[in-house]
């Protein structure tokens, strides 16, 4: 356990040094703040529900951005250290490979969590500063959004490690990471939507659709945030979906956690089998 902590601290130290933390935090804060102020314009300053609007726009942003940032941090973690030769030395130390992997995961997740918390927290802070009144339910939805955003980041960090443990070169890892991002964030939904339109409900039943949605972590995240809270789903235009949803928040959350743990476990197996 101590080894995991040592590696995690080093990862955080490195991320601070090469300004990953700074860049990510600033990017997320800038986007969150601009969405907060620009995004509330079309609602005509209703005030009371301001934070719910922010949640809708921020979670849509998160689906694109956080997986990308997570994959950028993680795709290089194993194959990159192997190519640079630093992994050889590290593994000659009294540390197990799974400890290296878990330590990196903890470190990278901390970096991402810090950036998300601070960046999105800035948006909420700005709302409070402008004098908007926010009720408890909105705060709960906002907290859930931040938590699930970090969890979504964890999923793609784990997926990035799996890629990094499997491929032979850094270039291949980068290519695969971009491919995975495109697949989960863009292509999957478009294909699903296209199929639904063509199918007209003949083949694709509700149960099958639910399963298909659970197969994409980005969709799980979207469902969790846009249908989980009544106020939010009203704004996101998904109130109808929310009422008929058979996937409860706890199931969605469990699916998201499984999406983080399974790739992480597979990455550990792949890494332990790899010869240096």
């Amino acid at each position, binding site marked *: 356990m101590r*080894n995991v902590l*040592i590696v995690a601290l*080093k990862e955080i*130290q*490195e991320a601070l*040094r*090469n300004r990953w933390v700074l860049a990510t935090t600033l990017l997320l804060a800038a986007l969150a703040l601009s969405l907060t102020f620009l995004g509330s314009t079309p609602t005509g300053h209703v005030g009371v529900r301001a934070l719910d609007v922010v949640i809708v726009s921020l979670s849509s942003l998160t689906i694109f951005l956080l997986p990308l940032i997570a994959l950028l941090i993680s795709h290089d973690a194993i194959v990159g250290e192997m190519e*640079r*030769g*630093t992994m*050889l*030395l*590290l*593994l*000659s*130390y*009294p*540390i*197990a490979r799974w400890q290296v992997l878990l330590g990196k995961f903890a470190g990278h997740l901390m970096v991402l969590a810090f950036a998300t918390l601070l960046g999105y927290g800035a948006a909420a802070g700005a709302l409070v500063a402008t004098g908007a009144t926010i009720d408890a339910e909105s705060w709960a939805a906002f907290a859930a959004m931040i938590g699930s955003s970090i969890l979504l980041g964890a999923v793609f960090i784990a997926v990035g490690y799996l890629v990094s443990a499997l491929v032979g070169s850094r270039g291949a890892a980068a290519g695969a990471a971009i491919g995975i991002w495109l697949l989960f964030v863009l292509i999957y939904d478009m294909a699903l939507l296209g199929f639904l339109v063509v199918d007209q409900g003949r083949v694709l039943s509700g149960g099958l659709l639910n399963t298909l949605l659970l197969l994409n972590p980005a969709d799980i995240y979207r469902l969790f945030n846009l249908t989980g809270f009544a106020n939010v789903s009203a704004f996101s235009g998904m109130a109808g979906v929310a009422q008929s949803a058979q996937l409860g928040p706890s199931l969605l959350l469990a699916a998201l956690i499984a999406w983080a743990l399974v790739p992480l476990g597979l990455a550990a197996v792949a890494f332990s089998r790899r*010869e*240096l």
Partner: protein
Amino acid sequence: MTATVDIRNLVKRFGAVAAVKDVSFTLPPGETVALVGHNGAGKTTLMKLMLGLIHPSEGTVQVLGENPAAGDFAARRHLGYLPESISFNTGLTGRETIAFYARLKRQPIALALALIERVGLGHAVDRRVGTYSKGMRQRLGLAQALLGRPRVLLLDEPTTGLDPALRQSFYDIVEELRADGATILLSSHALTELEERAGRVIIMNRGVKVADGTLDELRRIAQLPTRIRLRVAEQLPDALENWLAPIANWRRINGHGVEIDAAPADKIAILRHATGPEAPVDDLEVVPPTLDELYAHFLRSQEQA
């Protein structure tokens, strides 16, 4: 004394290529052993096997009484390793880097910083490793290998990139550890540098161990001729040839020089002859076979076999 490293019938194949073929040897504590061979002779593979980074295809490796690949890390705490081309994360400073490795070995940071001073990096400890020269990185690499007073030290081509003064202080540090009872395995592709420094030499070629012994033993096995150079006095060529007649292998060099290839058994007889009262010899020089010749001999004899 029990061996710290025990390798038996070790075979390592990468696909169809055998990088190490049926190698056996043991290394005792308190000895510096040189592992010599060309690039691709299997030196680095042997070290990786000793570190447990790769698994043997056949045979066994025991380091400090443990199988290094078994996933138990007690032995690794007493093991130092300096990889062939060392690299560190360039963003961290020397201090942060050595502190990280010290924590992994559960060593106090103060001791690690003392090692940094020891290898002469004290002035650069707060600079980023990315700004270090090759020699400085190598010294940082040595400092991390020395963490925790290792009982077994594996140094893969340790002196590449070090200037002669640093090389000397590097070997001083190594000698100190050896005197302290550590086993030191140094790999190199040149034997010359290791003269006087390695008590024992293991020569590898294409994954096969071709020779193993002290330099004197290897010289005896190789039976390489000693070169005796004579400067002869001004004399008639015939008289000189008469005098040299009992000696088999000789040749003239320049005007006054004669070079004799003396087999180990004949060496003393030739020297007696050359220093006899009627010998026309002004000066005499004895050149034992160099390590490079010795090395070349063992590589040749294995390739012919």
